[in-house]
């Protein structure tokens, strides 16, 4: 089991990092031939950075769009962010004081995360329009994330595992040593689902995370009259004139 999980985590990490890097390389390499910011749009680069910040941190467009989806989605993402930060303590020794400070919040953020996910999943059944657009993979993705959250919460609050040993396992992995993992079904489930999530990330809708930064309607400066914007493939037409 120790060896299996070690291999899985190494493979998943390679797939996750390599996959996302490849996607970003693809997005970067694909030109945006025309200026298409959704206006009104910022007229300066600083303005665009601020717009992107508001989108990524506060989900501004979603807030304007639908308060239910915004509230549930934001709850889930903020919960997930805190939980992830809290989990850094299992990969670092000594633990950074910021991570230590987050610890109490991170513990309860797990509930926020699970509640947000449950709400989003409920919408997929209860709202006719969203039921119509949902594919099996949409449901499975929510099930996977909720499974990770619930098994994590169970280990934290109900059936504890030997967390010191878990930390030793991951610290070991980072220096290519395989230390024993506690034999705990909840832990196996939790880690197994995390591995699965890491593997599907670069080939699924989870790509919205890097994707949002490359969305031309959000990341372009609104200055088409002031600067000439020309993609390489479009510049070729000019030679003919």
């Amino acid at each position: 089991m120790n060896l299996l999980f070690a291999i899985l985590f190494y493979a998943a990490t390679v797939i996750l990092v390599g996959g996302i890097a490849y996607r970003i390389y693809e997005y970067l390499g694909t030109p945006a031939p025309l200026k298409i910011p959704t206006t009104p749009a910022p007229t300066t680069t600083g303005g665009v950075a601020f717009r992107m910040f508001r989108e990524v941190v506060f989900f501004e467009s979603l807030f304007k769009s639908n308060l239910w989806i915004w509230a549930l989605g934001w709850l889930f993402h903020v919960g997930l962010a805190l939980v992830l930060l809290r989990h850094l303590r299992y990969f670092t020794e000594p633990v950074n004081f910021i991570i230590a400070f987050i610890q109490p919040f991170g513990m309860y953020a797990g509930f926020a995360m699970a509640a947000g996910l449950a709400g989003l999943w409920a919408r997929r059944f209860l709202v006719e329009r969203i039921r119509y657009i949902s594919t099996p993979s949409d449901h499975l993705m929510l099930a996977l994330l909720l499974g990770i959250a619930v098994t994590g919460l169970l280990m934290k609050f109900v059936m504890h595992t030997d967390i010191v040993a878990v930390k030793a396992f991951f610290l070991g992995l980072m220096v290519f040593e395989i230390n024993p993992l506690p034999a705990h079904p909840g832990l196996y489930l939790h880690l197994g689902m995390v591995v699965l999530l890491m593997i599907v990330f670069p080939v699924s809708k989870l790509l919205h995370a890097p994707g949002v930064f490359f969305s031309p309607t959000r990341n372009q400066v609104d200055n088409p009259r002031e600067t000439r914007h020309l993609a390489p493939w479009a510049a070729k037409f000019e030679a003919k004139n």
Partner: protein
Amino acid sequence: MADETTPVAVAPAPTPAPAKPAEKAKVVAPAYRDYPNIPALKIDSMADSNPYVAAAVHNESVGFPGTLVEGWEQKAVAKMGELLGKYRSLRVYMDACVHCGACTDKCHYFIGTGDPKNMPVARQDLMRSVYRRYYTLPGKLFPKLVGARDMTKDVLDDWFRYYNQCSECRRCSVFCPYGIDTAEVTMAAKEIMHSVGLGHKYVNEIIGKVHKIGNNLGLPGPALENTLEGLEEDVLEDTGAAVKYPLDQKGAEVLLVTPSADFFAEPHVDSLIGYGKVFHAAGISWTLSSKASEAGNFGMFIGNYEQMKKIAMRVREAALELGVKRIVVGECGHAWRVAYAFWNTLTGIGAGADDPFAIQLQKQLDPNYKQPSHICEVTWDLIQAGRLKFNKEANDHRIITFHDSCNVARGSRMGDYAGGQFDIPRNIIRAVANHYVDMSEATTREKTFCCGGGGGLLTDELLDLRVKGALPRMEALNRIVQDNGVNFMATICAICKAQFTKVLPYYGFKMSMVGGVHQLVSTAIVLDNEQ
């Protein structure tokens, strides 16, 4: 009337005599919603909405295969791959959607029809399902799981139906947390369909006319000259001022490029009269061009870069030939988006170039002005400079509201700051009239609803769709008609004007209720020779 851009009769009769009674009889405006609730899904309710397929001659005149080509399935998939490599928007938007549902109730066509395939995400999924099948690993391995589909005739038919039920208005992109713009997907789908020989008759016919004759209406030079002379006589008679409507005048300061509907159709022509009066009152020499007698650019509607560039190049050529210092665009929504956002890229009309192609033109144009400028920017600048005088009472019979046209609102700008495109037309209206009321803020500015006729859908065979798609705008209008007695809806788009003229009667309004901002300017402006 096969062609919607042909002049619209000013007759009071609400509907023209139906050509095909059985088909026309069923076009009925949907009921207003008491409260803007979200319609229940009506599966396949718009599955019969089929635009006319372009004949071979129309496809070929624009450089596409005449009819559906042999092996179109593979060719369509290959074309999709090509576009994925050329457009970052498409590349990212195919991956990024999480099916959150935020966009599902934002499309005017969904609100008006209840057909779930008119929900923006479902419209995108018509293509995304094919993308997933051929260009993603899970779609290749587990198509059912991720909703991936083979490129079949059924899929293609759905594309033709439902991508021709999107007016590319971008309202959904305002509300998407990732800014996914369905217009980009629709344009890509149309580009793919055209590349395999499945074109929309209305759009391709018009593009053909632009190339052959110079404008969408197919008005040849002499007819244009006649029309403009007639306008000069009319204005002289009305006002006593010798306002000129010059054509192909070399050395004029301003080249005005305007939608060809302005030359002929009601109420468009009243705005053209207004532009002339503004230039006259300000003492600016200007000209129209017979070569570039069309601001509209239907190349955008079919997502074809080459066509869009070719159509826009007419304006560059005309500007070089006529030696003008400024290029100004008349009241046309998508034309202004193309002009504002794309002309610098396509033709070098703009500033900030470092290549010889663009510098040649940019040297000629006056850098003290924004190139191109919108006619509303010109008029507002003149008003602020105190160079225009108005008799506001002349508009007192009107209680006015303003309909933001989608391409101006969400795809362009006016003036120096983000949102100038909302304020400048309203400022002008307030400067020339005493009674102005805004519609509900959920339906104006960047949240404005499309008129229902944009994106190349302004054709008679899609009338049912157009009437239904106008529902949210008509609801907002109806509210201020009831509450404030509004009797005039100003707009700065030729398509909006033509569409509303046609659909207002279905909702019990007079077609003359819609008009241009410069129609209002025209009514109130004081010309030298008057008094």
